[in-house]
């Protein structure tokens, strides 16, 4: 996969969806939430975590 210089540090919409999805699954399974939030829905919580940059997951990109 070829990424342009300026795109390299940005997540694509697919990467974003995948990260939030994976994180939401962890939260749903009982993983500790890393932020203070009023939300109950694991997906909403994961999205908020993503926005704040706190999700401990990244993507592997081929060179």
């Amino acid at each position, binding site marked *: *996969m*070829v990424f342009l210089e300026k*795109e390299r540090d940005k997540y*694509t*919409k*697919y990467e974003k969806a*995948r990260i939030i*999805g994976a994180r939401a699954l962890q939260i749903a399974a009982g993983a500790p939430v890393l932020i203070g939030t009023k939300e109950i829905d694991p997906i909403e919580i994961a999205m908020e975590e993503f926005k704040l940059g706190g999700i401990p*997951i990244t*993507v592997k990109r081929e060179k």
Partner: protein
Amino acid sequence: MELRATVEEEVARELTRMGVEGGIAELIKGEFIPAGLTAEFDELLEMQVGEAYAEDIIRMLGRGEEGEVKLGDIEVKVDKSELSGKIKEELKTKLRDVRMKLSEEKLDAILKKAEEKYEEAKVEPREAVGIVAAQSIGEPGTQMTLRTFHYAGVGAIYITLGLPRIIEIVDARKKPSTPAMKIKLAGEYALDRNKARELATEIEETYIRDIKSKIESSTEDMCVWVSLKEKELERKFIKREEIEEKIKEVGKDVLVETMEDGKLRIHVKRMSFHELLKLEKDLSDKLVKGIEGIKRAIVRRDADGEYMLYTEGSALKKVRRMEGVDFSRTTTNNISEIVDVFGIEAARNVIIKEMMDTLEEQGLDVDARHVTLIADAMTMDGEVKSIGRHGLAGGKVSALSRAAFEVTVDNLLGAAMYGETDELKGVTENVIVGQPIKLGTGAIELVAR
């Protein structure tokens, strides 16, 4: 010139009044007026001396009313933005029109928004562009007419359009069902209708049968008599001597005599009856002028008022060195000819143009990028490959995806016998084995941070 001087003087005076240093010439030369605007500026200078012009020039220079943005700023800022060339140009003209209501902040805001939208419109890595292109052409395809023939608007030349034409292009046929050329003319040929007509007769095929009024073989004196239509000869710029020369090419020892009444007497020594009849047939099928395969050549005026030729039938190579043909602007709808003569890149462009034109003619608005993708896929190996129901020709298809498509058992059996390996790269294969597909979200591998 004198007029211009006074204008310049007045503007200069106006500028000094406003506290701008230097004369107008320096202003034009300097960076005050950005490149690209100098032409417009010159036009203003040429304008009639009046009250309006000075104001206009001042406005152009951007020292007009409060809150107005400088034209130069539009130019510079748009150029600096992260947009593509075409969008930049469009934005510039649109912004110029509303510059009176435009403040610097507004300009910045517009540019920021435009950049955002542009960024959003880009496809992201791992998007299934091929599928999207296929659907985006397939759906409008269902709305196209199945009727094969349709005239292209110009003259009486018929060209295949609609769905049959799209299929033809994608199939990469050696010869389209209705080949046609658009020949642009060079020099005075493009300006002189008669010259263009003369060239058309050089291209359009003319057989003796087209110019004869009568052809008959006489067993009495064992020869063929041909009478010609003088009007046709004149119209097609054919000289009698040329015909005689051509007739001599029909066979060995052919003798031609022109009688006083204009009739041609064609004779071969010691001919049998059979040979006589054959001679008559050969004569009537003899090409006297033009290029074989070009059934018609019609002179038309293009949008720029230049004369050009539309032909039914295509022979790029033969037209190439003809005097009066502007070959670099001449094209055909026969893609395989384009590959031979102009090369693969040109073929790619013609595929795109032909497809877009066909779709457009049917009133279908398909984004050019879908068509471009198809043309790229077809031409990427340096030769034009067809796209059929088994995908791009010559592409190796995995055994599993073949089995999923047709004759499942045969395909699996064959693959097993030949010991094929499946790399599980495609969508179908991965669906069959129950894995995520390598597209979009499915193509992403996660790692703990």
